[in-house]
């Protein structure tokens, strides 16, 4: 089913909140980079969930907005470094799109830091881990997402009286 599901929040006994971050990685560089981090046993926080996409150019703004809407606390997007795209220019066109989206989200008041972008190559397992650490720290500071999240239908007809 083509839709983004709500993250399952696992809260421990102390009710300690941990951010859940959805991560879109391009198949050719960043996914391999994350894989390298794994096989090299580089530690990074377990807050991210990875979605593999063919190219960073494939990432539609819908993915990001839907993710935030269903309650993911943050988004991380990563693709090949400029010039390294498997499809030559997918990441460069995507870069423009991300720039606009980033600016618009800032403009609408979504906290800068919820949505993050990076370039990670297949050889940069260490870099991937470092970026994940940085992003997780950033979002931990921001706290759970409140804006753009859909209303809970178990409080029925809240927007009833127009």
């Amino acid at each position, binding site marked *: 089913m083509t839709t983004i*599901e*709500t993250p399952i929040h696992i809260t421990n006994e102390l009710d300690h909140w941990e951010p859940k971050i959805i991560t879109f990685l391009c198949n050719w560089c960043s996914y391999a980079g994350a894989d390298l981090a794994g096989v090299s046993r580089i530690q990074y926080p377990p807050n991210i969930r990875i979605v593999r996409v063919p190219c960073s150019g494939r990432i539609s703004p819908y993915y990001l907005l839907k993710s935030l809407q*269903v*309650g993911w606390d943050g988004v991380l997007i990563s693709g090949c470094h400029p010039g390294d795209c498997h499809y030559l220019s997918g990441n460069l066109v995507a870069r423009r799109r991300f720039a606009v989206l980033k600016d618009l989200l800032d403009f609408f008041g979504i906290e800068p830091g919820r949505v993050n972008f990076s370039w990670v190559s297949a050889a940069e397992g260490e870099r991937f881990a470092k970026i994940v650490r940085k992003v997780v720290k950033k979002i931990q500071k921001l706290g759970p997402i409140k804006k753009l999240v*859909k*209303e*809970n*239908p*178990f409080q*029925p*007809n809240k*927007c*009833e*009286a*127009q």
Partner: protein
Amino acid sequence: MNPKSFEKRELQNVLQILAENYDIVGPVKEGNVLKYKKLDKFEDIYLDFVGPSAIPPKSILFPQREVLFTYELENKDVKLHDLSQQKPAKIQVIFGIRPCDAKSFALLKLFFEWGKYKDAYYLEKFNNSIFVSLACNNTKSTCFCTSVGGDPFGKENSDLQLVDLGKKYVLRSFTQKGEAVLSTLKKYADAPKEDLQKIEQINNDARKSIKTHLELGKIHEQLANMWDDKIWAKFSAACLGCGSCSFLCPTCHCFDVIDDRTDERHGARIRVWDTCQFPIFTKQGSGFNPRDAKLARARQRIFHKFNYYPTNYGVLGCVGCGRCICLCPMNSDIRDELAKVKEVKTATT
């Protein structure tokens, strides 16, 4: 009971008394948009408006987004929670609606209880509501209620009516429900005779101030022969195909039923306003769209109100509030269109 009269500044106290027994809904301004809402603070009520509100009070009984039931999915099991069975604790008093809007509630009731199936969501709310109309001392140039059987001081379909006499209000009741409300206001004096005479006079003036007079007669019979007329293309030429005329029409009642998921296990089935003016409204799963042309959608709107309503329920489906005229971005004017429809008759017969 005799009508009560009270000073304008007493209004909030009156509402306070009513609030002991009822939930109060009234017109409020949000930004520049006048809409009806449940009042938490009575000073928010805004009664000095001319003509109808931008968002019709139908949104109280037929909200734009209404939860039909909520669901929980548990492995292979499903739990549904019916919300129509939850009765409100208090009856609601819908305060300050225009007489045309009061009529629209009655028209919607006709529709929602027509036929084999009754719409519990609308009817339950309707039965648990008391309608207090606000008589129109002044009218807008787009008002044409008198052409469709209404009146700026129309008493039908209101339980009570509030009349603005400049410095004070007179509250009069027309029904049993209204009497019950009025009886809670014993501390206020009965309206003196001269007030009642004044009402008559203002009513006459208001009626005269309506400049649009359409002789609709048996328009539904005439429309029946106009299906393929050229005028529909003319009416719809500039139409954007936005849904404003019908979303904000107090008698339009079409809706869509969708499932709104909060997460993979929880969500609700909701209904949201929909409109025949959107091309996608009639588009079938196969891709075929029986009402694909813009002119067909313009025709549907007029036919629904002036042919299908009279044929099915014996009343016109328009209350003459003029919202669609004021709010149409392209200034499509239903008065103009109806007048042109009438002209076609003289041309063919």
